[in-house]
């Protein structure tokens, strides 16, 4: 049962990560295009996404079970990416937020900008959590190998 739940959460983790990145990218590209700004000025927002992507690759390639089989960590990742998507969706489609109508490019950028600081906090938190879990895993491996050595002796 645990394995099934973990598999579902792990799959959703990657799907929601892509969805969250896509919606954030769309919002920044659209608003920069409308206001004739260079997208390079918003590249700082995507750094936590890049870091997380690298860490996820390491998790997959290194087959790190401590991270990939951690239900709590996978659930937290899903929650964070889902929250990102909800906020992005509301910034685009919630027309009852009047700034959406007034701003002229159909995206409530002020509402989304207020959330960006929280988004960075959450994403960097996930990165640190991932690294800490990876470090724990490596150390646990050493404990198990040490225990085996003692048993042999």
């Amino acid at each position: 049962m645990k394995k099934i739940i973990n598999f579902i959460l792990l799959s959703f983790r990657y799907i929601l990560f892509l969805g969250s990145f896509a919606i954030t990218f769309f919002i920044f590209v659209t608003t920069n295009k409308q206001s004739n700004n260079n997208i390079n000025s918003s590249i700082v927002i995507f750094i936590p996404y890049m870091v997380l992507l690298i860490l996820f690759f390491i998790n997959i390639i290194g087959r790190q079970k401590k991270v990939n089989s951690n239900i709590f960590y996978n659930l937290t990742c899903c929650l964070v990416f889902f929250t990102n998507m909800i906020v992005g969706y509301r910034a685009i489609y919630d027309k009852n937020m009047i700034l959406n109508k007034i701003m002229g490019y159909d995206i409530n950028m002020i509402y989304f900008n207020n959330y960006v600081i929280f988004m960075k906090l959450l994403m960097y938190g996930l990165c640190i959590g991932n690294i800490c879990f990876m470090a724990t895993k490596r150390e646990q491996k050493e404990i198990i190998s040490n225990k085996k050595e003692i048993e042999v002796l």
Partner: protein
Amino acid sequence: MKNIVIEYFNILSYTITGLVFGLASFILLINVFHYNSVNEIYVKQDSDYEINDKLKEKLTVINSNIQKIPSRANPNFIDYSNIQTKLNICVQKINTKELNNIFNKDKITMSDVYDIQQFYKINISNECLIKELNTLITDDNSSLNNIASFKTIKPFIEDNINSLKDSSDYIEKVIKSNSDYSFSSNVVKVSIFNGVQDSYYELIKEYNNAINFIYDLSKWYNSEVI
């Protein structure tokens, strides 16, 4: 020593993940409540329809009052014609299809409240009160000042225009700030400003005040031009 470090790393990883989980849950829940507040629909009551019908009636009466053409024999014929033209323009700007749509709506959302406020600001405040009626009182050398009854009501006109022209600005600011998480429209919270319902009531009050003012002015015009 190594085991202690490993344990600390374990605790740290779960703590950080737990904090991230808590913050994400908080933000998600606050968005759910904010979504409910912003997307609240106010269903009009019978009393609202009565107020709307009275406003429509008043507009009809204003229209009929200002149809009287002043007599050419009247020494102030030009001045009265000028007033009649300005009141006519006012009624044309206000009594539009857009106003009918506002009055005929059964359910009011935040977006509708904004449209109602913008109609007041553009059509009633700017086009009627400031562009037309305010010009009656700003020129001290105007021949209108020779009409004794106009001189009497001039302070009344001035006070009303001054109080009506900016009266919806506060509501506009409240409506525009509804992207803030502190915005509240929950009907249960009777002690807190209910964003949709109270904004709508305030705006209808301003509509009432503005139309009453124009009604009084048209009544005065009607009494003068016999």
